[in-house]
């Protein structure tokens, strides 16, 4: 079961898909038989959730991540993330031919490719201004809006010619951050077909006034939720992606047909059938029966089935993700917060996590080592420190020494207690009283055996320093319902009663910014970590183009432990061996790119 762009809501399920020692050993990379690229053919993809919205700007209250899977094939975003396993924008599939920055990186000039919409009309800069005008009035009800980002950071947009867009921003940016992050969220939309306020109304330039833009946005969002007309509404027939939607069933099964007018790289598969499987079991049974599934993923719990799948003509390959995994401490939990706020306590925790052992024994070597915030998939952006194993190699003795040095009575296999309350350099720290125990609850998503093993290992290692961990596994949605973003100003007991939590992994866009994850008030910064120095370093990476600035941010984050780093397991892909173009896996697009696939001879 797959997701194109993996959101954290599915982390629990998808993280169950990595780890495959035997499969890795016995599977090939891409099929060597797929050398000749046949034109035509049908491929089916197994998914485990259903899209429910087709207009690319889904409302704020709709967070079905699978909508992206649906509309990406129809209206690709300006920047297409990744070329194979390389963390670069795809020059072939991105909608622009060049982006030039000027005015101290406050202005970018984007030249759009001379591509066409599926009705034969040219894609023009007017389509960009249409998008901008709609988002300008509708960003508050746009699911993907990033605080302070497009369109609120835009001061003006001009279109000197049919294919050129000049965008002035309210501040300087790191061009890589903007191109590889924000522009991966924005598609072009066909102004000539969609600029209307009702189904029967005329197409005009309604978006050029605030009231008109609001009406158009509301109309398109209303139409975008009507499942029954996804495949028939004339609006959605005008696309610029490699496929058009030819059939859609409310049960989540939908079919794409190749867009004859697609101006991008040649598409070979003439039809793509997306099948909905409610459970891993049903999908696995289909794979084992040699059914119709062309590609899917293998749950980690079922790795022993890899051999059988090979006999049914599948290749089974572990692929890394563009994501990091971590255990998040709640610094504003009434009981555990003061303890977890101490850097030395988090360092002791990290010293007690034997990451290489987890990679080797739990994930059978198919995982990112988790040495810090940036996974190895990002290549040159991974700092030497992270490549060398990170700042905290496994060292129980160092953990014990750290705790003793800060006034704790360490009781291996018992419970360590604070004997020196206070704020001095050898004391336990602010808010920690005498007799306070190093005892925490660690909540994590249930249903994945590797999660269970990983958490049990961490629990066991922590005992060496007398840190008592009580594990609590809950279904993902149950956990999500009780874990909220906790900050100094808002940490209600209902959503901030948790102490340590592990959801799975956090995905990155093409540029692995720390914004949102580790900055003060970041929307993914659940535990309320706040460090002005880190905020400045994050800003430096996002606003200035400098590799050394990025390394500085990266190493500082790795050392300060806003979250506890742990390995991130790969996803295990299964695909028919006669499908070519599947490898190398693109971790930045989720690897599901049927426009690149073909049957070989």
């Amino acid at each position, binding site marked *: 079961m797959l997701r194109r762009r993996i959101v954290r809501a599915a982390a629990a399920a998808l993280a169950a898909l990595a780890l495959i020692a035997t499969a890795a050993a016995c599977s090939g990379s891409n099929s060597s038989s797929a050398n000749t690229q046949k034109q035509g053919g049908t491929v089916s993809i197994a998914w485990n959730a259903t899209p*429910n919205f087709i207009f690319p700007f889904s409302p704020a209250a709709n967070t079905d991540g699978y909508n992206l899977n649906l509309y990406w094939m129809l209206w690709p975003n300006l920047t297409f993330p990744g070329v194979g396993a390389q963390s670069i924008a795809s020059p072939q599939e991105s909608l622009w031919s060049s982006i030039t920055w000027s005015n101290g990186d406050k202005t970018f000039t984007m030249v759009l490719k001379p591509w066409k919409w599926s009705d034969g009309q040219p894609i023009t800069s007017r389509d960009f201004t249409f998008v901008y005008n709609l988002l300008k009035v509708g960003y508050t009800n746009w699911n993907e809006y990033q605080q302070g980002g497009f369109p609120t950071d835009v001061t003006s947009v001009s279109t000197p010619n049919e294919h050129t867009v000049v965008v002035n921003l309210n501040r300087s940016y790191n061009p890589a951050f903007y191109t590889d992050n924000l522009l991966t969220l924005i598609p072009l939309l066909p102004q000539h077909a969609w600029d209307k306020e009702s189904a029967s109304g005329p197409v005009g330039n309604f978006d050029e006034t605030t009231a008109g833009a609001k009406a158009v946005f509301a109309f398109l969002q209303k139409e975008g939720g009507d499942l029954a007309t996804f495949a028939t509404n004339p609006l959605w027939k005008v696309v610029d992606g490699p496929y058009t939607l030819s059939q859609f069933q409310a049960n*989540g099964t939908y079919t794409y047909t190749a867009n004859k007018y697609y101006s991008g790289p040649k598409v070979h598969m003439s039809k793509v059938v997306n099948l909905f499987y409610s*459970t891993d079991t049903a999908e696995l*049974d289909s794979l084992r029966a040699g*059914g119709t599934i062309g590609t899917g993923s293998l749950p980690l719990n079922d790795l022993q089935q890899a051999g*059988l799948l090979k006999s049914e003509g599948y290749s089974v390959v572990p692929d890394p993700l563009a994501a990091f995994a971590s255990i998040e401490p709640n610094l504003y939990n009434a009981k555990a917060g003061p303890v977890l706020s101490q850097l030395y306590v988090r360092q002791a925790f990290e010293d007690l996590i034997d990451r290489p052992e987890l990679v080797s024994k739990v994930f059978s070597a198919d995982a990112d080592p988790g040495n810090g915030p940036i996974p190895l998939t990002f290549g040159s952006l991974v700092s030497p420190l992270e490549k060398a194993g990170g700042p905290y190699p496994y060292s129980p003795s160092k953990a014990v020494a750290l705790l003793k040095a800060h006034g704790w009575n360490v009781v291996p296999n018992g419970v360590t207690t604070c004997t020196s309350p206070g704020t001095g350099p050898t004391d336990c720290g602010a808010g920690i009283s005498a007799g306070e125990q190093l005892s925490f609850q660690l909540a994590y998503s249930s249903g994945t055996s590797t999660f269970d093993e990983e958490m049990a290992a961490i629990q066991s290692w922590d005992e060496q320093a007398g840190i008592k961990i009580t594990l609590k596994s809950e279904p993902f949605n149950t956990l999500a319902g009780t874990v909220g973003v906790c900050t100094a100003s808002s940490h209600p007991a209902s959503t901030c009663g948790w102490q340590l939590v592990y959801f799975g992994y956090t995905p990155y866009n093409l540029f692995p910014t720390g914004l949102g994850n580790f900055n003060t008030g970041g929307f993914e910064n659940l535990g309320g970590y706040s460090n002005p120095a880190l905020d400045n370093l994050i800003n430096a990476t996002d606003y200035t183009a400098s590799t050394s600035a990025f390394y500085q941010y990266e190493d500082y984050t790795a050392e300060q432990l806003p979250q506890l780093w742990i390995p991130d397991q790969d996803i295990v892909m299964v695909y028919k061996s006669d499908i070519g173009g599947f490898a190398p896996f693109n971790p930045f697009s989720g690897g599901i790119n049927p426009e690149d696939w073909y049957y070989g001879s």
Partner: protein
Amino acid sequence: MTAYLTRRVGQALAVVVGVMILTFILIHMEPGSAARSILGFRATAARVAIFNNTYGLNEPLYKQFGTYLDQLVHGNFGISYYYQQPVSSLIAQRLPKDIVLVGLSTVLALLIAIPLGIYQAVDRNRISDNLLTGATFTLYAMPTFFVALLLIGLLAVQTHVFPPVAPQNQTVGGMLADPRALVLPVVTLALVTLAGYSRYMRSSVIDTLAQDYLRVVRAKGLPERLVLSRHVLRNSILPVITVVGLSVPNIVGGAVITEDIFNYQGMGQLYYGAAVQHDFPILLGATFIVGIATVVGNLAADIAYGILDPRIRHAGG
């Protein structure tokens, strides 16, 4: 009969209302918020507020219940938080599929269980009876998922006779057009239910066979075949009718495990998904439908009883 029916319908309505109130309260007592469960833990306070405002979740509980009842009497089950679709549409899409699945499997189970029960009762305590008893007990003891996986392993994975997933077509007509894909889920449900039916039937037939009036019938020279079909069957089938009546909620409630294993997108999957996702409108809508089905099933069984056995009708007033 009218008074009897009136009383039973009144009781049924009271049960449905009670179930609704209880379900509403229990659902809202669940830990964690629906907004966070649906939007995810990274949802900002502003988005949670939009969500709660959109669905009226920031209103006091009694007001929410009032709104819900008001919608209900207007035939509106609300909008699913997750699917963003009217709950009535979702139920309308899935309910017919369950009627097909559970209906077919029940019919199949009865077609096997009733003759089986009669045969075992007539041949009771002989080797054939003991063997069949052992077989039915084995089926009865097997969890549904195990039967399903066994059938898939044998008939789909090993021999490729049947597909391992149910028909994926959205309409009942489309599903019935792919009967091969229906075989395994229907047989799975039939196998796990027929044991119960056949045991009820066997016990009931044994009781009936001991009745004096059958001696009279036989003394009159009626062939044994007719004795069984005309007199024994009709008098023995009452307990089975009760059980079938009680299984009506399964038709609308779905068969969660079977649906999951065979990727059968019925009410069971809908309900389970809603429970996991805190999708209150679906939970309430489905509970309401199941509640209705439960009382209707019981009512139907009572009426069938009355038709088949006039003594019950008369005793009931």
